[in-house]
């Protein structure tokens, strides 16, 4: 996994609440057996007409946002299906950071497995960043994970919270299976005890 340290990039505004993972990537794209190449499917039904033409008004079709790497959106982002294809599609399009007032639990956890930083902020700070993101190619936002800071185009600084362990995972790009297996003795111990206490399992 690619580490996340700092990111300075165009931020795209998506001012909708309850953006669900069916919107982020519709089911017809879940038939792949690979993780890669899903960027083209991102927000497909909002981005294209049924016959496959771009809808010019959709934010990611506007030239200013073609290279956006930060997405600013509404509350409860990523609700619904557990499909990790949603963060895969966001990542493949180029997004490394999603900023919203709140996230659905499964989506939030999935982001950290893919080097995407999800940042939850109070609504008033989101409103400010959404205004910033509306400035098209001038909507350059900087995110510093180590310092837990976001810098807007006008230089204003916002700080954010993140679980310290998940922060380390992102900063270092760690494979968390490897990390858990390093502590394999604890799993062996647990299993030995469980076998005695709950033999029917």
């Amino acid at each position: 996994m690619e580490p996340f340290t700092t990111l300075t990039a165009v931020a795209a505004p998506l001012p909708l609440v309850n953006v669900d993972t069916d919107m982020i990537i519709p089911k017809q794209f879940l038939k792949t057996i690979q993780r890669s190449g899903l960027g083209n499917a991102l927000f497909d039904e909002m981005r294209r007409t049924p016959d496959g033409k771009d809808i010019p008004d959709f934010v990611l079709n506007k030239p200013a946002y073609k290279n956006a790497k930060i997405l600013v959106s509404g509350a409860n982002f990523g609700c619904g299906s557990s499909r990790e294809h949603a963060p895969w599609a966001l990542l493949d399009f180029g997004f490394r950071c999603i900023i919203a007032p709140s996230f659905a639990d499964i989506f939030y956890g999935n982001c950290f497995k893919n080097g995407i930083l999800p940042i939850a902020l109070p609504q008033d700070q989101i409103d400010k960043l959404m205004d910033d993101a509306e400035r098209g190619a001038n909507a350059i936002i900087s995110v510093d994970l180590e310092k837990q800071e976001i810098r807007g185009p006008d230089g204003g600084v916002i700080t954010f919270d993140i679980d310290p362990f998940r922060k380390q995972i992102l900063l270092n790009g760690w494979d968390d299976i490897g990390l858990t297996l390093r502590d394999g003795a604890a799993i062996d111990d647990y299993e030995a005890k469980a076998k005695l206490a709950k033999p029917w399992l």
Partner: protein
Amino acid sequence: MTRARTLYDKIWDEHLVSAAPGELPVIYIDRHLVHEVTSPQAFEGLRMAGRTVRHPEKTLAVPDHNVPTDKANRAGGIEGISDPESKLQVQTLAANAAEFGIEHLAMDDIRQGIVHIVGPEQGFTQPGMTIVCGDSHTSTHGAFGALAFGIGTSEVEHVLATQTLRMPQSKNMRVTVNGTPGPGVGAKDIALAIIGKIGTAGGTGYVIEYAGEAIRALSMEGRMTLCNMSIEGGARAGLIAPDEKTFDYIKGRPKAPKGGGWEQALAYWKTLFSDDGAHFDAEIVIDAADIPPLVTWGTSPEDVAPVTGVVPDPANESDPGRRAAKERALDYMGLTAGQKLSEVKVDRVFIGSCTNGRIEDLRAVASIAKGRKVAAHVNAMIVPGSGLVKEQAEREGLDAIFIEAGFDWREPGCSMCLAMNADKLKPEERCASTSNRNFEGRQGRGGRTHLVSPVMAAAAAIKGTLTDVRELV
């Protein structure tokens, strides 16, 4: 004296493998279900890292999302899947299960079905377990007092490799449903009423325990419907303390504990309840008698209204973000504020899914359908949740009632709940559906979904509009 703990806290503590300072806790996973859509990349990840499956015997694989539900294609087995990508996913699941030594219920196995119907049916799901699946509706299994929740594909790989997960502990919410529901009101209406009250993100960060007289009175099937919908209220898991109904349901099932193991398991299961005085971070109390038959009118499961009511006016919503979402929903749904819901005409009816595809759901549908006819303009399909549900329904003669009434009686699978197979809505087609999500495009691009209970779906099929089922009982 030990601290009073909630049921969730008890299961969590019991499964804690390690909690090193500065790290997320590691919890043990007792059972793992896999289906064809969210697992291929996990198995590929194992192969690329040269890892094995730590406990293949704790995992059960079953294809459900992509399988055809029409008899002709189904009869052809995997070769009968016309979409090459769908076919490849189903083939890949079978190949991965064989390679890693995981039990696999193939498409033509009578036990095949929707993974959340198969788990309980086989006795794979038991109280006090931790159960995961790369599928958000894993919350279904909480009906048995198991801590069950959906995970992403990277976590599927983590569980396959380590039989554990790293995750933060959730907060505790208790939803108490007192009283007795009125006629025509069931578990689905209770679920929708709760989501309507707490909102689609109301349960985020929580595990919900359902309690109270109305919950105790629910059958195991009803409890599964309720726990299934927990995720639509934002809660990763829902829980109901096990009782005699739970134990009776499990006893004798193929993967249930046997002999001395049964007695030992039972003694443990009887300790699985929230202690008096246990702390809940949030409490919701509802009276079942206040819940009418409900329908959704929008594109979020929280967009709930009584079937006797009207489409709400977004202008009454004070939060601007939510107001915009409701306006967008009405536009998508082709409805106007103030319109009577009972006058909304439906084109399609879908009965099935991990929410409402069990035998009791089908019996309820049959009780409304018997001796009546599906409206001429409605295409109404019934998709049993598993091969065993289908067999049971046919043994009881329910299929004859459905066919006589004009329903399309199909083969088991996820079907039009998420429309990954050929079963889908056309743009602007309107459907009364017993499934769990009314999101934009969920049942097919441009399709319009109204979530309802099984009896409400049957009533809509017969009247051809959203209908108060109490008019038909």
